[in-house]
């Protein structure tokens, strides 16, 4: 790909996100929605996601402190979380959510706790990566948009 070094870096980073399974095809869909009229669409969406999901995580944490666990409620939260993470293509996060839901169905409190830790872990990891990615994108400047437009 032509472009600056930054752009190449960006492209590399992006590729690895996909290769490592952090992101899936949905992310590409978002990128396709970005254009000149909406130049930061992807970043905006991701930001929105993190804002919303942070709130959800808090709710789940609170719910996990209750005894006994309300599995239905937890399941609902996870359902939301799953839906949200699917919106940006956060594949790993989504998978962990599925795991959590399984534990809820099984009434496995222990499993729920563990599983949720994983969810949070993946959630945070992706966030870091995406933040770095967007930063790079911004640095790459207009060139970035040009190279990414499809």
């Amino acid at each position, binding site marked *: 790909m032509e472009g600056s070094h930054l752009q190449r870096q960006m492209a590399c980073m992006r590729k690895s996100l996909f290769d490592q399974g952090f992101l899936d095809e*949905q992310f590409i*869909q978002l990128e396709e929605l970005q254009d000149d009229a909406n130049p930061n669409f992807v970043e905006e969406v991701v930001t929105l996601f993190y804002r*919303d999901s942070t709130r959800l995580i808090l709710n789940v944490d609170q719910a996990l402190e209750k005894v006994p666990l309300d599995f239905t409620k937890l399941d609902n939260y996870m359902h939301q979380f799953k839906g*949200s993470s699917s919106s940006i293509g956060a594949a790993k996060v989504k998978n962990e959510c599925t795991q959590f839901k399984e534990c809820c169905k099984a009434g496995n409190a222990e499993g729920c706790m563990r599983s949720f830790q994983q969810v949070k872990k993946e959630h945070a990891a992706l966030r870091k990566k995406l933040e770095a990615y967007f930063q790079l994108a911004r640095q790459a400047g207009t060139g970035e948009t040009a190279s990414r437009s499809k």
Partner: protein
Amino acid sequence: MENGFSYPRTDAFPAGLRVLVVDDDPTWIKILARMLEKCSYRVTTCCLARDALNMLRERKDGFDIIISDVNMPDMDGFKLLEQVGLEMDLPVIMMSVDGERSRVMKGVQHGACDYLLKPVRMKELQNIWQHVFRKKILEVKDIESQEGIEDIQMMKYGLDEFDNGQLLSGGDMFSVKKRRDMENKEHDDQEFSDSSTVKKARVVWSVDLHQKFVNAVNQIGFDSDCHLDNACTEPISVIFLAEIGPKKILDLMNVPWLTRENIASHLQCPPEDIEPTAESQIAVMHPPGRQPKTVSLFSFGKKYRLYLSRLQKQNEPKTSFAGIKQSDFSSKDPPGSFDLQRSITMHQNNAANINFGYCGHKILVQDMDSQIHEGDLKGIVSALPIAEPKKALMGEIPDPQKTSSSSRMGLTESLRSLVPDVNYASFECTFSKQHCWSGEVPVMQLKQLKQEHDGNTHLPLPSPRHHIQMDPLQSAPSICPRTSIMERGKSGPIEIKPFYTEYRSNHVTSKSPVDSFSVQADSHIINSQDFEAISTFRSSMKNHGLNQNFINNSESVQPNSIPGNGSNLVPSHEDLEFFSLQGYGYTENIGLQNIEFSDYTDSELITELPGHLYNGLRLNCDYLDLIEYLTVDQGLFIT
């Protein structure tokens, strides 16, 4: 929105499609909005289902399609789906991250025209316009087919009539046909004009709306009381909703966006997703959301309704009962509607409420033939708005199961007293279930029928033979507590089915249909009660003639509570109302309600009946045809 669907709406179609997106997830809202924008659609977003509903209500024609998530905090997506279907009849697409088959199925059952899995791709959104387009086309087709159906029905009926040759003369038939044609046209025209404003008057009946409908019908029942004059100690009033007209119901309902056509349809059209079950012999039109249980009932009800509509047409050319198909009748058949019914029935204390619908119907028919002569079947036959308004049989749906056993008993007893020979057993419709009358239609229909027919044109109570499903109610008044027919959901399968089938074959013309009920043809049977039962039944049955009887019956039956006295089989007003409320399927029931034969002597009945029947039959011609068509079409009845 255009009237009918001129193809395409604009050259740019589907560009500019107005989409409403409902989702509690802000991220998805943003993404979907952007995607739809890219498809050149006009997007409106909403985070809450309530807001979405408000928006939809405010801007009746403001949207073409709705996309909604399944899981939302304030309201279940399926519920929203139902509501939209009922009120606005817009295509709704469901979305969810959960693609489990049961969920998808649920979505479809609730009326979703598509179910998308999240993450949603833009490609999928690009094609959503097809749902809008399809709906339009179907609407147009519906109107057209309705006309066609009626024509076919009419013809069929006409032929049948000729065959039987009993009540109708050829000339009459033709005139009936002509009249029907005219009415059809009128109606259709109306339909069309209305549709231009209300999208073909397709309304989906939510539980709330249905409740309003029921209330309105009840009110009408209260106000208009057809009395069977004469000997009946207690007048049996049958309120024939059809007679009164959907207009009145509409006014009473006070739902601004509803049209008369909607009501007419509602009277006639059963939910589309009603599935025939053995039990639901008598199709009851459930309010939306109700689990469709009784298809057969449904068809019966439908027929009845149609019949009523015909009658109505005769009386009020403007009435449009067009059988607008309630296409949107969602399959959801929420228990709510049942409850509704149930509660309604509860009010009715009398079992006498018509379950008879079926019974009456049948009975009437049979007897009609042989026995009914001009007599004062009045109530019975008059049900038909035809020329002689006989008493409107109040198709009250006897309080289904609920009250019922006592009232039912009462009814039966009354019947018994009236007509000793009547085979109440058969008559006792299975009122067993509370629902029985789900009444939607029946009552309405009865009302219609209720022409001022006074006297008891009762149709002979359904002879035991036919039992229209009456089973549990056996003890109950023979008048068919079949209301249970309607809904019955639980109780027993409404046997009306068989009845119906017989009926069908018999085809009103006089007797035949009544088979089972037919009043066993004794003159006795023509008790008003029977009559009612018959009429009720009739109405549902395709037999037009039957309906007449049925109706007549209803007429004769006054909405009195059926106290144990024989003379009043008439189901109480409430019952009747209930019956009507029952709606779709109930038509049958209504007729039965009226079983108030009170003093109707057999001979009287007999004499009267024929006349009425005749009228009824005539009226029924159209109706029959239609019903027949419907029945066949529905394929439900004979499930």
